[in-house]
Every structure is written in C-alpha cells, then in structure tokens.
C-alpha cells in the first residue's frame, strides 16, 4: 500500500546536493569493498608497486644525495597507484551507462554534479587509504619522512588532491568511450606513458636530451617533484604551486566536460 504523500515533490530540502553526493559516495564505498577487482586495485597493487619497483630498480639506480632509493621512489609510486586506481572510475561510469544506472539517476531529482562528485569523493577516501598503505609498506623497507609531520601531511593531501584530477579525467573518458573495457584502457594509457617519461623512477637529467624537455613539463614529474620536496625536505613553495596549477588546469577542463557529457548520456 502506498501510504506516503509524494515527498519527492516537496520543495525545500536542505542542501540536497550535499546529501545526494553523500548517498552516491556511500554506494561507491560499498562497491569498493565488495567488487573484487576494486579491492585488488586498492590493496594488493599499491603494495606490489612499492615492493617491486623498489627491489627491481633500487639496486641499479643511485640518486645523488639520497641514501635510500625508496625515499626517492615512493612519491612517484603514490601517483602511479592513484592513476591506475582511477582507471576503475572510468570503467565504473561506463558500466553504469551501459546497465542503465545513469538513465535511472538522470530520471531522479538530483543534479549531475552529485552523481559524479559522489564517485570522486569515494575515490578520494580510497586514495587516502591507498597512500597510507603505501607509506606503511614503504616504511617496512626503509622509507622515512625527512621534513616533519606537517610536510608529511601536506604530501598525503597533495596525493589525494592529485587523485581528484585523475578521477574526473576518468569520468570524462568513461562517459566519452562508453564501453567499460575501452574505458579501462583509455584510463591506463596516459598514466603509463606519462609515468615512464617522468622523474618518478629516475632523475630527468639521466634521460636523453630530446626527452628532458618533455619530462620536465610532464605533470607527473611536476606533481612527483612537489611530493618529494614535502617528503624529503627542501624549498616547497614553487614546486607545490606548480603542481597545484597543473591539477587546477586539469580540473578546470575535466569537471565541466564530464558534467556536460553526463547530462546527455543515456544507454543505447
């Protein structure tokens, strides 16, 4: 028996966009712990990255001025793990599109931004966990923060904020390519290319000259550089400002583009 009035038709809900974003965040957090692939991306993969890269490259690479390679490596691995994890966001939104979930959300009295931001917020919480896990794994094999607790917290915050840009980029990719498998590839591809042409694994000065110019401007180099100064010490203002500028630029493009795509998205 239908006993309710039509509460949906009642105006004057307080701050509905925040409540709706929280509801969608809850949905995505539940999925995070229940979908096996997502769980692996959030737990096994980050630890594997830390251990494998550290032991595979650590013997061969000596970074001037640093005693342990793990101190140099870990900030870059933050970015890699977050970037790889974000590809699952493109997969998920493309799945929602093909299964009709987006049709359902779009027929509800909620804004586009709430659906997408709910996804990004869940990603941010996952990334907080992933970064903490990588710090723990890194610490087990010798990683230490050298610039104090405030800078360490700032590094974690910057890593999570970097994740926001990756998440919005993958939402846009997933809505654009529409097919879950293609969305996964589309999300991983730029991360792989940018990661290996950045300073994440080796200092840029060790690269051939033609690659150095690209590597210096590469956003992963810029962001990794900022993370490194926060972890290891040194002047932070300029690197962090440059990283923030890259992230802001990415968000300025991807957020409105993803919302615009979502507004016209429907399953076929």
């Amino acid at each position: 028996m239908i006993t309710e009035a039509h509460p949906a038709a009642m105006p004057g809900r307080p701050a509905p966009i925040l409540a709706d974003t929280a509801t969608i965040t809850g949905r995505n957090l539940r999925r995070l712990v229940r979908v096996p692939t997502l769980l692996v991306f959030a737990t096994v993969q980050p630890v594997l990255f830390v251990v494998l890269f550290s032991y595979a490259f650590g013997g061969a690479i000596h970074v001037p001025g640093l005693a342990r390679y793990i101190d140099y490596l870990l900030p870059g691995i933050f970015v890699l793990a977050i970037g790889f994890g974000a590809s699952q966001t493109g997969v998920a939104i493309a799945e929602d599109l093909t299964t009709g979930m987006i049709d359902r959300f779009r027929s509800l009295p909620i804004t586009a931004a709430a659906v997408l931001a709910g996804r990004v917020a869940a990603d941010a919480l996952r990334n907080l966990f992933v970064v903490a896990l990588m710090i723990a794994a890194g610490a087990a094999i010798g990683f230490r923060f050298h610039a104090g607790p405030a800078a360490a917290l700032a590094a974690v915050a910057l890593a999570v904020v970097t994740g926001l840009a990756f998440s919005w980029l993958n939402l846009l990719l997933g809505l654009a390519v529409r097919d879950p498998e293609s969305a996964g590839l589309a999300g991983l591809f730029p991360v792989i290319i940018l990661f290996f042409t950045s300073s994440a694994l080796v200092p840029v000065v060790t690269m051939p000259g033609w690659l150095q110019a690209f590597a210096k401007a590469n956003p992963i180099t810029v962001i990794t550089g900022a993370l490194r100064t926060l972890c290891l010490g040194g002047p932070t203002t300029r690197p962090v400002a440059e990283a923030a500028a890259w992230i802001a630029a990415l968000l300025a493009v991807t957020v409105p583009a993803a919302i615009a795509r979502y507004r016209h998205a429907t399953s076929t």
Partner: protein
Amino acid sequence: MADAVITAEGLGKRFGPVHALDGVDLELPAGAVLGVLGPNGAGKTTLVRILATLLKPDQGRARVAGFDVAEHPAAVRRRIGLSGQYAAVDQFLTGQENLVMIGRLYGLTRRQARRRAGELTGQLELDGGAGRLVRTYSGGMRRRLDVAASLLAAPPVLFLDEPTTGLDPYGRLALWQVLGELTAQGTSVLLTTQYIEEAERLAGMIIIIDHGTVIASGTPGQLMARAGGDRLELQSPPGQDPRRLAGALSALGTGEPAVDAAAGRVVLPVADGPGILPEVAARLAAAGLQVSGLALRRPTLEEAFLALTGGVAAATARPAHGTRSA
C-alpha cells in the same frame, strides 16, 4: 484535456538518418494507464526517454505532470518514476540497499526510505532477497527490484518500459497486481510492451507505434475489433490435409484463413469468438474432419499489426531483428 498528466504533440527525434520518432501525439488522462505497443525498434523506448527527460525531442513538445519536459526537466523528475528496459540496479548492493539509496535520492529521510523499501519488497515478493546482493538475483527478481525502485517516491506518473520482459508468469502476475493497486490509488502509468495481452489487461487506452509513428490508437476493445477480433486456431491430425479444415470453416471467418501446411495448423480470424464454436463443431462433423487441437485466442501482436497495417508492417512485427530498441 485539462486533467491530462501527459500530453505530447508532434514529437520527433532523429538519430542520424533514422527517424526514431516521427510526429507522435498522445494524451494520458490522470489516473489512467496508456499502453504503448509496438515491435522492437518501433520508437517506444525513445518516446519514454523523451517523456522522462532523458532525451530532448528534435520536434514537437510534451508536458508531464504540468511541466514541459524540455524546459523544466527538474520539475518533471520530481513527479515521475522510471523503470527502463534493463534492470538498472547495482548488483554489488543488496536489494534493500538499492531501494534505500534511490529513496534517499528522492529526498526521503533514512527512516522513510527504509520503510518504503520494506513495503515495496513485500509488494513485489522480494522479501526473501532484500538482504542479498543483487548479483545473486534471478533476472526476474532484478526486474521486480527495478520496478520497486521506480515506485519509491510514490510518483504520480510512472513510466514502465517493457516491465514484464523476462519475468516468469508468477512475477508477471505480482507486477500486474501492484500496478492495479497503484492505478486504483490514482497513479498514472505509461507502459510499453510487446505483449498485446498485457496492454489489454492493464491499459484503458492503447497506442500502437511502428517506425516512429502512431499507426493505431483506441481502447483495447476497439483495437481488437479493428484487428479482426479473435483467432480460431485448429490443429489438423497427422495424415489429414489442413487445407480441408480451412475450406470447411472459411465461411465463418471475418477474413482469409492462414494455413501452415507443414505444422498442420489453420488460423482463422473470427468476430464472435465463443458464439461460433457450436457452428464450428457442426461443420467439422458434417465434413467428417478431425481436429487434434482447437483454441480461441486473442490476435498476436504480429497478427494485429498485419490487420491494422494491411500487411505492410508484417516484416517489422517479428522481434527477431536484434535486441536493441530505439
């Protein structure tokens, strides 16, 4: 007209060269059920998506619950429920979690959403599965959960796009019963279906669309009459030429009998269904013919199309051209 909850005038939508909808008019009075009947690809889903604000029409206009769908989509969304063609539920949430999520997004409090979820799982016979992940559900259970989600806010206008496709007879009956209760309480429903029986059972008014245009509309009785009434189906026993059955009975029909020689089957359109059965028996006895099966039934969608379109739509009435429905 004054109390119509849905009106559409000249709705048109193109996808590239394809006219998915080409000048559709319709009207749904408050509290009524409109059945939209048509084969796959006829434009049913496009029509529902435009009325539910998911797609913008290229031509024409539509009002739902007092608001123009293109100009005030947010106002429309507060007053509709939609159950699309595929079960749009999260398979990694439980049935209960899915419903509570949708309820929260409609603006219910957590307590209200839980109570409504409980009511709906009961109504749609989902109690046993409410606490289980949807990925363990059968196709029919997912479908019913999807319908339950569309009912969460008790919306005054409900869109159901082929709601019983994939349901077993039990699930179909449960859904029909819920829809009956809803309409008795004043909910207006627009329902698409490929099953003429379903439209007849649920809808006071039916429109038949094909190739994006309305080819017939009326009450189920009017359409049945135009489709040539009931069909008498006879099965000839092995060894007896079914054409002899057709010859003996053709004078009773309102149209030409269709003979399927390979299957030994004869189908004859008849006007006064049960009333002619004694005459059928008499003629068969007089001609010394046997039947191994006899049925009086409603025309199938294909037969109704054939009759209403003069045969032109016969080719498109087969649902075998793929599973997409534009």
